[in-house]
């Protein structure tokens, strides 16, 4: 049961990152692919209608985490206190820039909110990347099972770890890169005209750049946390998710070669999904590694709620998820296809 909930939590967080990740990516590219106001509205309209639905995955992840692994939520969120609030404020600012900025017709204000939009998306990608880095590397857990991470370190390879240090910063950079590539793939599918052409060019370049970055980050991870890569080899679940990753890469490459934009997006979605789930499978059963003393690590069993709570939750979680996808299916039909600023403009309030 604990394994199942570990899987569900990983699935929900991954789904959030994959879905909202394309919005981060599109937001990072906002100024690069869109050069005038009309083009910028196109990018916003590609994100607009469903971003709050994507955000619900994050809220759902938080809910599942406190229900299934209360101790993990308590330890990790209070330990990364300031970083967590930076994330929350960026999400708040991004929501404001989408909801408010889109409704102001004044040019100056639109430019201001565009800047807020880009800024918060970049920071969100960096912070989520750094968070992944911290999960992979571990945190300085004390004997009471708590920690409090400083924001920075001196970036030395030996010595104290921080939220941003020599390992997590490259990890954050890698996340920004791969999410930008993902976002470019999404924009290619959703847009037309000049934005589309720029997105096509960027998509190829970015995915090519991902390859060496991935090799570097794998080597760094191997140095920091060799258990993770060894975990992949021995876990059947990790082989399955690796298979998903490979299928994603194949679909992505084929899609890019033959200008099949929908296939390319599907490929990059599965590629990201597979990668993150592989990471989760390799991590299991650990939820938080300890950098101070390996014995202090928190495993899923240490953090989990009692079995009865978990069993009850499965009983309602499955129908709830089915309902959620039903709504998506119903609503998706109205937003499918390319955006058209005159139709999907948010200047509607």
């Amino acid at each position: 049961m604990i394994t199942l909930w570990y899987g569900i939590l990983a699935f929900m967080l991954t789904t959030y990152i994959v879905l909202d990740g394309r919005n981060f990516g599109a937001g990072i590219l906002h100024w690069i692919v869109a050069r005038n106001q009309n083009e910028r509205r196109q990018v916003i309209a590609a994100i607009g209608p469903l971003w709050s639905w994507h955000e619900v995955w994050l809220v759902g992840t938080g809910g599942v985490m406190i229900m299934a692994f209360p101790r993990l939520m308590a330890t990790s969120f209070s330990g990364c206190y300031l970083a967590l609030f930076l994330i929350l404020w960026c999400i708040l600012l991004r929501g404001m820039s989408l909801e408010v900025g889109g409704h102001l017709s004044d040019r100056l204000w639109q430019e201001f909110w565009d800047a807020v939009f880009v800024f918060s998306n970049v920071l969100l990608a960096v912070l989520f990347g750094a968070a992944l880095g911290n999960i992979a590397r571990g945190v300085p857990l004390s004997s009471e099972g708590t920690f409090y991470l400083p924001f920075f370190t001196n970036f030395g390879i030996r010595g104290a770890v921080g939220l941003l240090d020599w390992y997590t910063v490259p990890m954050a950079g890698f996340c920004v890169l791969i999410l930008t590539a993902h976002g470019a793939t999404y924009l290619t599918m959703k847009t037309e005209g000049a934005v589309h052409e720029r997105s096509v060019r960027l998509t190829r370049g970015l995915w090519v750049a991902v390859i060496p970055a991935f090799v570097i980050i794998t080597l760094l991870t191997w140095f920091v946390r060799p258990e993770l890569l060894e975990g992949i080899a021995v876990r059947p679940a990790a082989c399955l998710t690796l298979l998903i990753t490979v299928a994603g890469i194949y679909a992505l490459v084929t899609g890019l070669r033959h200008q099949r934009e929908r296939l390319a997006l599907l490929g990059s979605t599965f590629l990201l999904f597979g990668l993150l789930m592989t990471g989760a499978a390799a991590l299991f059963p650990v939820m938080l590694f300890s950098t101070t003393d390996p014995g202090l690590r928190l495993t899923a069993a240490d953090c989990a709620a009692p079995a009865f709570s978990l069993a009850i939750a499965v009983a309602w979680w499955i129908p709830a998820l089915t309902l959620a996808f039903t709504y998506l299916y119903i609503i998706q039909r109205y937003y499918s296809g390319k955006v058209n600023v005159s139709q999907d403009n948010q200047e509607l309030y």
Partner: protein
Amino acid sequence: MQASLTDAALWHRIHFGFTITYHYLFPQLTMGLAWFLVHWKWRALRTGDEKYNRAARFWARIFGLNFAVGVVTGIPMEFQFGTNWAGFSKYSGAVIGQTLAMEGMFAFFLESAFIGALIWGEKRLGPRNHFLAAVGVATGSWLSGLFILLTNAFMQHPVGYAVAADGTLALSDVGAFLLNPWALVQYAHNQCAALVTGSFAVAAMGAFYTLRGTHPEQAKVYLNTGTLVGLVASLLVAFPTGDSQAKMVGRYQPVTLASMEGLFQGTRLADVSMIGQPNVIQQRLENPIPLPGALSFLAYGTFQSYVRGLNEFPKDDWPDNIELIYYAFHIMITLGTIFILIMAWANWKRWRGRLESSCGLLWVLMLAFPFPYIATSLGWMTAEMGRQPWLVYGLFRTNSGYSQVVSAGDTIFTLIGFVGLYFVLGLLFLYLTGREIHKGPDEADAVARPQEVSV
């Protein structure tokens, strides 16, 4: 309690109190408005009268603004359980996590999927599906309220739990947990109050347009619907829901009831003081104007019932700010009574067909809309400060619940951040809402709505 800049427990409480009070200003209006939208969409569908569609369109835009602010201020709330209240999350996460997770899975997916369709998709969906989108959003928003009140009810009156071997709470009886009597009463009370907020806002808009002499047809719709729902909801807030809520407090939290009424000595024939000031140091109520026996009757059903005073409880179990609870509770009750009187007056005039020409009444209706917000905030202050010193009533004290690793300074820093961001957010919200009101229901409708070209 020492009150200083290094008192982490205090700042964690202020942190949560500020963010949740601000957040709740928005959902209470959307929960109240949601059923107005459903009602108008339904009337439009049945009668084919375009004025109802126009009303729904105008209020959907106001709804959308409130919804957006509600979402962006609501997301941090869930994470604050982990960041600021790690002790509490660890202790009771296995129980309250159930309803928090259900809220995300059942309510938010529903709401966020259909909100876009409700605000932007009228022509794309067609009248029938657009009506269904309104029902979906309304259901989602009320479900979300239900799950949050279930969570709160567990903190007020824990049921259906067991204590696990490591001292944390576990769920033992799902039925009892989900049918917590406290939750059902509080939910009814709270949702009626949300309807009061909604109907005062709708009526105030009608009064505003009537006094300005603009949009007469729409103003009439708002006044009629707003005052009718307003009267019914104001009455329901007081009786039976508010009355049952008070009885519930009397039964399960007698020390809170004593604080709400500033009752230091237990007695039969206990009074309700209409006006008064608790003096905690001297342990008496100053300058009371009493209604003899009313408290005994209201809380326990007969005038002879014995109401326990604060003195009968150990001081450790007293709520830590009795004055504030007393004022919050009494002002809420007073406002609730005034709401009934205003709405009764308005309905009397409406019945006589003179609502639109009663200038004085229209001014009152227009200026009354902020007061339901004040009343609901005070009601929640009574409930939450009345629960002190407990986080989970009788089981877990507030002082054990906050994150030990987070210093008071970090908490103050993030609190200041929220104050700043929410100030800007509030300005934007007011500006955009004001712009909608200025544009008005008819004009906004006359402007070509380009997105409605079907795909």
